């Protein structure tokens, strides 16, 4: 029997980690780390898990240790945030390039400078092309659910890619929410065991991980990796369906709210979807046909689901909690807009960059976006393609 508990976002994650009972967790325990690994280390100390817990000297080393352990065939997890993820960057590409199933929670926080560790998505968006599967969570429940599924996705024989799941810094990580926690034994059955195709510890069959590959093989290895990423969406769907049955909670690739007859909509990741949901409910009371689209999966980019989700819309605002500094728009926006290029049925589109460095996103802010969308839908004209929501002039 599952039970409902009041949990901090970080506790929901640590609880999932306890239930998953990984072989190895390597983590750097100082800021910008969150309480996830602190709480997990308590489980290790109390003997609630069988995990080998390694405290290392940096996030770069944390990911390196995870890579070594995964190459040995272990089930490996870690957690990080903000500058910690940035310091891991070199090793992120090695984990994915060597096709090692590391599962990591990243608590979304800003990158310095100026110094700031409040919520935004600059950290994980900065890592969007490192070959990791990326799953965004609206709240603590989704963080818990996504983490358990991540293990199965990552270790699947057709995937063998690292997965990072995201929860919003502070908004989700440091707030208490009601979280429905599955039975320990149900989680254990669901995550199964890791069947690594190769192991460094298999002394009877000595192998090499991470050799040099020059112009004659590197390209083939990268093409395999690319195919695995594209193909992983099918596995994500399978695992999601199985988890839906276990938990009774829907696990869509792209979550849609009030979209059946919507004319205007906001597309946004993570906790801001919660705020948007409540605004949509209010607008609906006034007969305004507003809706919400919340992609749960960002890597691989679910092109077909995205294209389908906007069908019938007159105007769409894509909201990014990070800037690409590309002189054009945020990362979600540019990829959504690109996905729609061939579509004959595409809405007018605009981008809102918002909430950088933890800037609060209020109900009024979201209403303002919907007001503009109504205007765009009415006039058929987008005044400003790229907008900065709630910034002072």
């Amino acid at each position, binding site marked *: 029997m599952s039970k409902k508990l009041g949990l901090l976002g970080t506790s929901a994650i640590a609880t999932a980690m306890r239930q998953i009972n990984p072989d190895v967790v390597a983590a750097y325990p100082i800021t910008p780390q969150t309480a996830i690994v602190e709480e997990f280390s308590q489980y290790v100390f109390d003997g609630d898990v069988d995990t080998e817990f390694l405290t290392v000297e940096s996030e770069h080393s944390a990911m390196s240790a995870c890579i070594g352990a995964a190459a040995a065939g272990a089930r490996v997890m870690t957690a990080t945030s903000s500058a910690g993820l940035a310091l891991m960057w070199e090793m992120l590409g090695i984990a994915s390039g*060597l096709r090692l199933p590391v599962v990591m929670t990243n608590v979304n926080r800003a990158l310095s400078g100026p110094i700031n560790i409040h919520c935004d998505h600059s950290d994980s968006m900065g890592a969007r092309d490192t070959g990791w599967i990326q799953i965004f969570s609206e709240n603590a429940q989704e963080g818990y659910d996504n983490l358990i599924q991540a293990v199965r996705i990552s270790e699947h024989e057709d995937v063998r890619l690292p997965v990072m799941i995201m929860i919003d810094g502070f908004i989700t990580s440091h707030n208490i929410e009601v979280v429905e926690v599955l039975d320990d034994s149900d989680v254990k059955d669901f995550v199964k065991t890791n069947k690594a195709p*190769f192991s460094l510890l298999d002394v009877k069959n000595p192998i090499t991980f991470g050799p040099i590959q020059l112009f004659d093989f590197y390209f*083939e290895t990268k093409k395999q990796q690319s195919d695995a990423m594209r193909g992983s969406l099918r596995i994500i769907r399978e695992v999601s369906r199985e988890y839906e049955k276990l938990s009774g909670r829907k696990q869509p690739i792209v979550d849609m709210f009030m979209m059946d007859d919507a004319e205007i909509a906001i597309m946004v990741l993570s906790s801001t979807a919660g705020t948007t949901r409540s605004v949509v409910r209010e607008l609906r009371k006034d007969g305004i046909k507003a809706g919400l689209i919340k992609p749960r999966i960002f890597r691989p980019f679910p092109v077909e689901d995205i294209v389908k989700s906007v069908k019938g819309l007159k105007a769409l605002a894509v909201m990014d909690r990070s800037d690409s500094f590309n002189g054009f728009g945020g990362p979600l926006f540019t990829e959504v807009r690109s996905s729609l290029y061939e579509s004959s049925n595409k809405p007018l589109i605009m981008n809102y960059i918002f909430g950088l460095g933890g800037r609060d996103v209020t109900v009024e802010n979201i209403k303002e976006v919907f007001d503009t969308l109504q205007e765009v839908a009415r006039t058929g004209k987008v005044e400003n393609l790229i907008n900065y929501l709630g910034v002072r002039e």
Partner: protein
Amino acid sequence: MKIEAKEKPKVKEKPGYKSIPIGGVIPKAGSSREYKTGDWRVRYPVIDKEKCINCLFCYIYCPEKCVVVKDGKVERVDLDYCKGCGICATECPKDAIEMKLE
């Protein structure tokens, strides 16, 4: 008499992304022997036996240990692995080694 390899190493068709192990893993030990570094080469060494005094400097300096010695004499160069660096030719005190274009 000039010592040249009888046959240039054949460049084997390399396997594609559909068949190689994932993540660049080498799934068995001792396989570097199969990796013929000879195809990196642009020039190959040709030893002039007339000039050679069998000092074996080339044998000692070759970073790939490609100079094959038999009974204290230079016999041939193993072109399967010779990468054409030309160190042997530079070190030869008798200028007995010429680096020829492939």
